[in-house]
């Protein structure tokens, strides 16, 4: 009789541990999938912003040579230099001698705001993914081995209207 209970006990523990491990592995996978999706969204908004900036530079003529160059660089930058190029574009957009509600800026302002939101979401999920990778069980069983290490996309807040406009 005792033997049967032993078997039951062992089976129950094994089941519990297996459930926990499966669940943890799923958690790791889901977080990494979200990192990818969040990066995709951030990338899309940054490209949209650079394209809008390039179009804007085209309409400004003359005065916007450096803006055009920054937009071009942001669009063409290889992986390792992308962050610097995006920061440079943010700086160029911030020093534009136009009020933020100027109609020509519309697309740039919206794309910048969306990029800022996407950056926030990406940063949060990268932090969560890195946190789950640090868990003992994840490291011990190398549950994250099939996913590359998530990295922060380290740029300044691209929002142009982050600092509230002072109304007249």
């Amino acid at each position, binding site marked *: 009789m005792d033997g049967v209970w032993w078997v039951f006990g062992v089976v129950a523990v094994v089941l519990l541990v297996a459930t926990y491990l499966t669940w943890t592995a799923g958690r790791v996978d889901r977080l990494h999938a979200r990192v990818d999706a969040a990066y995709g969204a951030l990338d899309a908004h940054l490209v949209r912003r650079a394209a809008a900036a390039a179009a804007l530079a085209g309409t400004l003529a003359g005065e916007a040579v450096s803006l055009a160059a920054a937009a071009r660089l942001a669009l063409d930058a290889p992986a390792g230099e992308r962050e610097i190029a995006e920061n440079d574009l943010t700086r160029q957009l911030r020093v534009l001698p136009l009020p933020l509600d100027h109609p020509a800026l519309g697309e740039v302002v919206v794309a910048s705001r969306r990029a800022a939101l996407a950056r926030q979401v990406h940063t*949060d999920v990268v932090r969560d993914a890195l*946190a789950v990778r640090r868990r003992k069980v994840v490291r011990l069983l190398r549950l994250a081995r099939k996913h590359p290490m998530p990295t922060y996309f380290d740029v300044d807040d691209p929002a142009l209207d982050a600092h509230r406009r002072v109304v007249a």
Partner: protein
Amino acid sequence: MRIGIVCPYSFDVPGGVQYHVRDLAEVLVGLGHQVSVLAPAEDEDGLPAYVVSAGRAVPVRYNGSVARLSFGPISATRVRRWLAAGNFDVLHVHEPVTPSLSLLAVLAARGPVVATFHTAMTRSRVMAAAQGALQLVLEKITARIAVSELARRVQVEHLGGGAVEIPNGVAVAKFAGAQPLPGWPGTGGAVGFLGRFTEPRKGFPILLDAVARLAPSRPDLRLLVAGPGDPDLVDSPADLDGRVVMLGRVSEEDKARMLASVDVYVAPNTGGESFGMILTEAMAAGATVAASDLDAFRRVLDGAGALFPVGDAPTLARTLGDLLDDPARRTELADRARKVVAAYDWPVVARRVLEVYATAIEATTGRVTTDESTVPLD
């Protein structure tokens, strides 16, 4: 867009979070979205059509105050059923780190989840004790919104991770059209205060002191007070007899009328305010505002009101006297206030929330589904 919103507090009881959820839901419906709000409710009749009741709430002591919450296996089942039936594009929960429907919804959902943090509460002992469980909740949230800079700072410092700051909305049209109460403001000057006047941090005694200083030289100056509380508990100086009019607890409509009835609205709070909702309401109603120089108030007013040092009754008295004697200055401040408050108008705020929804949807794959794998063992 199909939007599911979870309100942790009962709709039967008045409160800032409930009003916020109600106004947001109504504006979103007005913009053509399909909205379902899950909230605890005592009585299912009389609820707005977009509210789904999660059953009655039980009073729970939490963080030094009593909150009416729904929490437990029955609530959890209702949350799952609501999620499964809703087929939402995005789930928006409010105050998700207290034991509540919101927390249950976050745990039960998978997909785009947006969370709004209202209070600037610091990490409680409950939360500190359950760091692993807290992380489970937080990592399911795709995008976080904080209603004030203070709430955002708490996010960053105590919960880890950032948040987008989107202020509380105010229904500007509702306040801007309000008619003054009969006989107000009158010609002798009228000053207003709204809130729990017996609560020390609301600073009502400071206002009373200031008004008492002005009273001898202004025989017709009156003070209009609205808010719950026992007037007998107020230690009113004798020379204010007959000058203080107490309205008691007022409906939202009368609140707007009350704000439209005074020359100057005063917020003498001594602290503990994370946003200053009442200031946006006063600004929307077209009142001239004098407020204590708190961080939150300064940010909301943005120059559209007079500030005085916290707790300084003599300076408040001087400020009030100057404002009452200078109608042109009052008009100037009120005009500026109308411009400032436009940024807090619900339709404007709701569009910013919709942008966060869009961001959350892009950053996840698929709609909101129930998460069948939830085994919070740790």
